[in-house]
């Protein structure tokens, strides 16, 4: 096995080079603007597809095609900055996270609509014939990738160190409060940073397309996760860290697929991300120490008032009445199923709102809890033969406990590392579902999950609707009680200023655990319901995209708004069905909705509109 090592390293370095290029782009933007650009994957995809068109359709020679494609990715960066970042210069830092993400999803799906979802070959005149050097083989493309990586990073180094502009970029990323910006056009600085970052992403996209001889529209988001992992590995704002992180990740993956199993290859990046954040909460080479005095919360908009469950109010009765009587008006089985699905997502968004809205923890892992509940219930039912009520109760309790355990590593993290850490943890869980075949049956999923029955009565048809409505109602009451109590106040205080809260005796660790625990328990109930409702579950339903979608629902409805989150969940879940004539556009509409809502109504549909910005409000 050891004689494979040189081979493993050579392969790893080539792949790692593309990760490093993409990761440097992430770190560059993070350093300058303190923003995680979730649209970075779109630049990668764009670069690869530009190259594809220029080579194949226009028949340009390879050097010209690659140079122009890199230029195209540069322009994508321009677009990302102008559309998703510049309008939000003074907004809370969560907002650009959502808009860049929305833009990325949108662009990726536009590519998919134009080119189709299939993987296409990426034919180049350069041969894929491997050369052998004493037992170690290397392809021309691997050599080119390594060379282009070195040259690109060298050019970036010159740009950052030898130009006035580059010096300013470094000054800003080393000390964001710097006054060295005097006389510099900050807008232009940020714009160019995005462009350069996307161009680097584009090069990474082109190189990986050539390396694997394949392009597909989702290659960008997959690579973006790797880039995030590499960037976090190095310590997000450190550019040299991103390079080292990328190369390490490439080698680790290549070792993993040789020595462990290629199925777990994609898990390595996520695991590395999680492990590094557990032990080095600001990355391996991060020099910006965890500053305890720093105000680290990413969303600082005021929250809407908690609605009171005042049963004398007619509006509340109206809502309850409509929800109860709706199945009388809608008799179509298919429409009733859609209504049921909408309520599932309303409940999920409601539960994530506890964590994201009230406690201020941007969690990109909520689908993991949902999936945990679904798998727990499905396995107990199909493997252990438990009756539905027992499975349901067990799913709630187990997922709640799992949520509390989940909170432990997350609460050491600050700022953007929270989003990154939850992304890694949530992704790890879905990879486990996918690859622990003996236990979860892997990608085949679990079939023939029994329909739920309560007290000997089988739940079916309209029964599902009323069952999930009951879950939603109970959850809503619990959430309202929770946030409208001393605990809720302490949570909101922690969201505003964790150190300030701890100075009056608030134990943030307990609060975070409780928030995650309650949110996960509700998600677990949804998962259990879902498993027995559709009678078939597979890891696809609980992946990172699903987590992102649930967060988008909360943001759409209004962070910290209880009716808002429910509405946001129901609307975003129902929207694709309402637009069924345009089902191909489902994901693109998702992305566009996220982008537009945050741009034009940052507080969400039912969020609280701050009449004016407080003087000196900090970001």
């Amino acid at each position, binding site marked *: 096995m050891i004689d494979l090592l040189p081979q493993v390293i050579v392969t790893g370095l080539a792949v790692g080079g593309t990760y490093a290029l993409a990761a440097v782009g992430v770190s560059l933007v993070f350093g300058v603007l303190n923003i995680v650009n979730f649209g970075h994957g779109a630049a990668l995809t764009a670069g690869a597809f530009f190259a594809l068109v220029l080579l194949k359709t226009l028949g340009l020679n390879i050097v010209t095609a690659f140079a122009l494609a890199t230029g195209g990715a540069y322009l994508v960066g321009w677009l990302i900055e102008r559309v998703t970042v510049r309008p939000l210069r003074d907004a809370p830092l969560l907002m650009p996270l959502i808009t860049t993400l929305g833009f990325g999803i949108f662009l990726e799906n536009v590519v998919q609509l134009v080119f189709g979802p299939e993987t296409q070959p990426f034919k180049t005149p350069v041969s894929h014939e491997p050369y052998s050097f004493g037992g170690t083989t290397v392809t021309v493309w691997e050599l080119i990738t390594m060379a282009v990586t070195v040259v690109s990073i060298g050019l970036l180094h010159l740009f950052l160190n030898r130009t006035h502009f580059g010096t300013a970029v470094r000054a800003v990323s080393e000390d964001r409060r710097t006054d060295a910006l005097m006389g510099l056009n900050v807008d232009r600085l940020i714009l160019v940073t995005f462009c350069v970052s996307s161009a680097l992403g584009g090069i990474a996209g082109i190189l990986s397309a050539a390396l694997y001889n394949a392009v597909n529209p989702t290659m960008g988001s997959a690579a973006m996760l790797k880039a995030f992992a590499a960037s976090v590995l190095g310590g997000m704002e450190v550019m040299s860290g991103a390079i080292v992180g990328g190369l390490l990740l490439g080698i680790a993956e290549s070792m993993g697929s040789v020595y462990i199993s290629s199925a777990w290859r994609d898990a390595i990046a996520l695991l590395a991300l999680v492990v590094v954040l557990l032990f080095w909460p600001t990355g391996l080479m991060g020099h910006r120490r965890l500053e*305890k*005095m720093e*105000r680290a919360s990413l969303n*600082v*908009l*005021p*929250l809407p008032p908690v609605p009171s469950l005042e049963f004398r109010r007619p509006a509340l009765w109206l809502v309850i009445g409509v929800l109860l009587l709706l199945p009388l008006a809608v008799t179509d089985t298919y429409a009733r199923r859609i209504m049921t699905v909408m309520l599932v997502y309303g409940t999920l968004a409601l539960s994530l709102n506890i964590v994201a809205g009230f406690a201020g923890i941007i969690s990109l892992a909520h689908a993991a809890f949902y999936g945990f509940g679904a798998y727990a219930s499905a396995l107990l039912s199909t493997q252990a033969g438990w009756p539905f009520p027992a499975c349901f109760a067990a799913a709630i309790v187990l997922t709640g406990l799992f949520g509390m355990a989940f909170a432990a590593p997350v609460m050491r993290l600050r700022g953007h590392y929270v989003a990154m850490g939850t992304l890694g943890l949530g992704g790890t869980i879905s990879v486990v579902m996918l690859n622990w075949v003996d236990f979860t049956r892997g990608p085949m999923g679990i079939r023939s999950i029994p329909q739920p029955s309560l007290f000997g009565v089988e739940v079916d048809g309209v029964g599902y609707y009323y069952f999930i409505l009951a879950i939603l109602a109970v959850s809503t009451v*619990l959430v309202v*009680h*929770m946030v409208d*109590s*001393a*605990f809720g*106040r*302490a949570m*909101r*205080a922690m*969201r*505003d*200023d964790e*150190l*300030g*809260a*701890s*100075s*009056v*005796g*608030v*134990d*943030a660790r307990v609060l975070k655990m*409780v928030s995650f625990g*309650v949110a996960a328990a509700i998600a677990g109930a949804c998962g259990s319901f879902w498993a027995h409702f559709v009678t078939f579950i597979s890891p696809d339903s609980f992946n990172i995209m699903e987590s992102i979608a649930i967060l988008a629902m909360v943001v759409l409805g209004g962070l910290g708004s209880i009716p808002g989150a429910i509405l946001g969940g129901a609307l975003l879940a129902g929207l694709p069905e309402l637009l069924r004539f345009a089902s191909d556009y489902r994901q693109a509409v998702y992305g566009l909705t996220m982008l537009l809502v945050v741009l034009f109504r940052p507080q969400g549909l039912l969020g609280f509109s701050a009449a*004016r910005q*407080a003087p000196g*409000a900090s970001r």
Partner: protein
Amino acid sequence: MHEGEIVSLIGPNGAGKTTAFNVITGIYPPSAGDIRFAGRSVVGLAPHRVCASGIGRTFQNLRIFPNLSVRDNVLVGFTLGNRASLLSALVRLPSQRREEQRLQAEAGALLRLLGLAEIEDQLARYLAYGDQRRVEIARALAAQPRMMMLDEPAAGMNPAEVDDLNALIRRMRDELGKTILLVEHHMNVVMDISDRVIVMDQGRKIAEGTPQEVKRDPRVIQAYLGSEAAA
């Protein structure tokens, strides 16, 4: 420090006054030495535990909760005194309602004491600076500390507000029985209300005594005005 005393910690910028505060309240670990309060060491305790041991504080750069109302800011201060469990809150037991009413009443009393009752429904972020300072003091008082540590409470206040602050600090000691440790640059405040003054320079204590003694101490004059003035 003695029970019921008002002590001021003064010194030139960078002398380590705020750092001393942050070490005492568990934000930074001390490099050496022990911190004892009410007979117990508080070294190594997390900030919320330091608070539970009876030390309350305010911050130089205000750390109120900008998106909470003034009343809610103060109510968060009662976290340690809250006897209702999460479970009783989730199902809203009568005992939890009574506890909430008790806390609301106590918060109301504190708000009146600090003259914040009229603005209790406003979000803290929209308040004037002086009001925000008082919100922070009220919040710290709500945790029922035995000792209050105030980090530059007079910063940014006008002379009338400073007079009110002096009166407030005295009342905290006389009526509420608090021991008070103060970091302050306003010499009017320091000389007016302190029982004892500790002078720091470059991380160490250089003098200690009554305000009059300290004023005359040559080491203090040197630290503040440079060596020539002392000579």
